[in-house]
């Protein structure tokens, strides 16, 4: 054990004295790890938002052949008719106004909902109160991530897309749509909407079904109900709605994953090449160590320990940077009023750091083996 520790100590000393090289390698591994972890978090967020779950009960009713909140307009009175359909547990009419309909990282999405419906949903607030919101006609409850992105607090005001609101509460939710929205009174948003009339028009209905197994059936029933009406509907499970609305973001996330894998492989190749060159450059040093009595395994342990140090430290730094950066940035990909946020799953960061450590060891495995197997007398011919 003490022999192993002594080799690790030697590797640490060597790495410390070769500070610039070590820092450069650790930074390279760290950046790659951070990139890979961030992409994995985004990918997980996309999966969360777009993958149909067995217990899913939420349907989104949109205007048929409309793909943007600015274009989707449905009569609010549909809510009573939808509520009467079999399998429907609740209906919430929602007016949506966004500051930017295109894909963006900083979109403000206003979601106007009736006060009674919001109270029925019992939203969880980390600051402010529902009563304060109810008492202000232009009050808003802003999602935690939107608040963090825009530096909003209770009492501050927010102006976007021609809408002025006062913040009455900070909203906590598992749903990224809520975490990245400003919930206002439906009537206020209808009144301030540039298009869509002064009232009675909403963008969509959020429908909760009583039985997840009947999700598709209820969706068909809703669309059949309004097929011949003035505003035909297109109803989809929320995950399918998000997948369609944010299809560009989903495609981008898929492309990013490929780039992420490429970056990891490129960084691994660079690390391996660097370690091979470093080991070759140090053949004289290893010859001296072996002359002093270091065994083949001892030399291998030194090289592997340096690889593990670079990989492990780079992995920890990278995972930490990714976690801190994503948590602080409050990143949300928003498109057509639909938000997708990265999911900061601790397992991703643990795996990313472990993979970086394994890459460090793997990159040095061949140099370690060759350093230990070279004939000492041949090495010393170049050393003496």
């Amino acid at each position: 054990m003490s022999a192993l520790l002594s080799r690790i100590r030697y590797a640490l000393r060597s790495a410390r004295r070769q500070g610039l090289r070590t820092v450069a390698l650790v930074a390279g591994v760290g950046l790659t790890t951070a990139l890979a972890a961030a992409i994995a978090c985004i990918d997980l967020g996309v999966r969360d938002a777009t993958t149909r779950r067995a217990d899913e009960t939420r349907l989104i009713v949109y205007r048929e052949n409309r793909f943007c909140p600015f274009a989707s307009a449905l009569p609010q009175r549909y809510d009573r008719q939808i509520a009467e359909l079999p399998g429907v547990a609740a209906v919430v009419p929602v007016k949506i106004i966004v500051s930017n309909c295109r894909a963006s990282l900083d979109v403000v999405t206003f979601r106007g909902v009736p006060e009674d419906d919001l109270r029925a949903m019992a939203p969880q607030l980390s600051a402010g109160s529902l009563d304060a919101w109810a008492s202000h006609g232009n009050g808003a409850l802003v999602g935690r991530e939107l608040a963090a992105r825009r530096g909003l607090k209770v009492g501050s005001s927010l102006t976007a897309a021609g809408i002025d609101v006062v913040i009455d509460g900070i909203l906590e939710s598992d749903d990224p749509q809520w975490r990245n929205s400003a919930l206002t009174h439906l009537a206020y948003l209808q009144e301030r909407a540039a298009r869509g009339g002064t009232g009675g028009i909403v963008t969509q209905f959020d429908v909760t079904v009583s039985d997840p197994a009947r999700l598709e059936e209820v969706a068909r029933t809703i669309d059949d109900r309004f097929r011949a009406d003035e505003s035909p509907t297109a109803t989809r499970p929320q995950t399918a709605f998000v997948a369609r609305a944010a299809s560009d973001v989903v495609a981008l996330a898929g492309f990013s994953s490929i780039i992420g894998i490429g970056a990891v492989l490129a960084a691994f190749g660079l690390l391996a090449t660097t370690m091979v060159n470093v080991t070759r450059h140090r053949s004289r040093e290893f010859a001296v160590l072996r002359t002093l009595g270091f065994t083949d395994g001892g030399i291998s342990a030194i090289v592997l320990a340096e690889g593990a140090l670079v990989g492990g430290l780079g992995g920890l730094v990278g995972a930490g940077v990714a976690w801190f950066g994503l948590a602080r940035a409050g990143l949300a990909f928003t498109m057509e009023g639909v938000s997708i946020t990265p999911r900061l799953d601790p397992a991703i960061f643990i795996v990313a750091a472990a993979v970086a450590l394994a890459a460090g060891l793997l990159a040095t495995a061949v140099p370690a083996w060759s350093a230990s197997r070279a004939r000492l007398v041949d090495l010393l011919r170049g050393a003496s």
Partner: protein
Amino acid sequence: MSLIDCRSLCKDYQRGGEVVHVLDHLDLSIERGSYTALMGPSGSGKTTLLNLLAGIDRASSGKLLVDGTDLAQLDRNQLAGWRSRHVGYVFQLYNLVPVLSAYENVELPLLLHDLTAAERHRRVVEALESVDLADRHAHLPRQLSGGQEQRVAIARALVTQPALLLADEPTGDLDRTNADAVMDLFGRLHAQRGQTIVMVTHDDSIASRAERTVRLEKGRLATMEAAR
């Protein structure tokens, strides 16, 4: 009593399909506590013999006993362990590890021994004092002169208290003043500690510091003479 006993020692190399007999049935004994200079023209087998004595290379045939151990019976790792306990090796070009301080270079061989940190420290300090470099312990090799580097290398070779100190042209890269200082140090080690030293040199004046000079020619023992 012999510390080193070579009997009909041979070392052959293949060079371009031709077998080169670097050592050719060499018989040689070196007493414990002796101070021997190995001389001879280039290619006579001096460094090859030194490498065999250190367990760095293996004999093609013959018998080689060092401090009672038949080196042919040891595998690579056993040889490494044996070397760390029995041999101190001094290179012509010092070969200090450039990223380690003088102290850390001297401490290096002790990392292979089961010693407490305090004992390790005591031995390193003692070794550096013995080569008059206690005040340079924190210096990196590039901050030392050639002579100082070689003295650190000697301290590194001695710190494990080996039975045998081998030196391959230890003054070959030094000016006369520093070469004399190193030779004075070898003389002191031999006289005060009874250190067994085998040193390869081309320089007659350096060889004259040893108790006896062994001359090799074409891999064979040519002459063996005591110092004048």
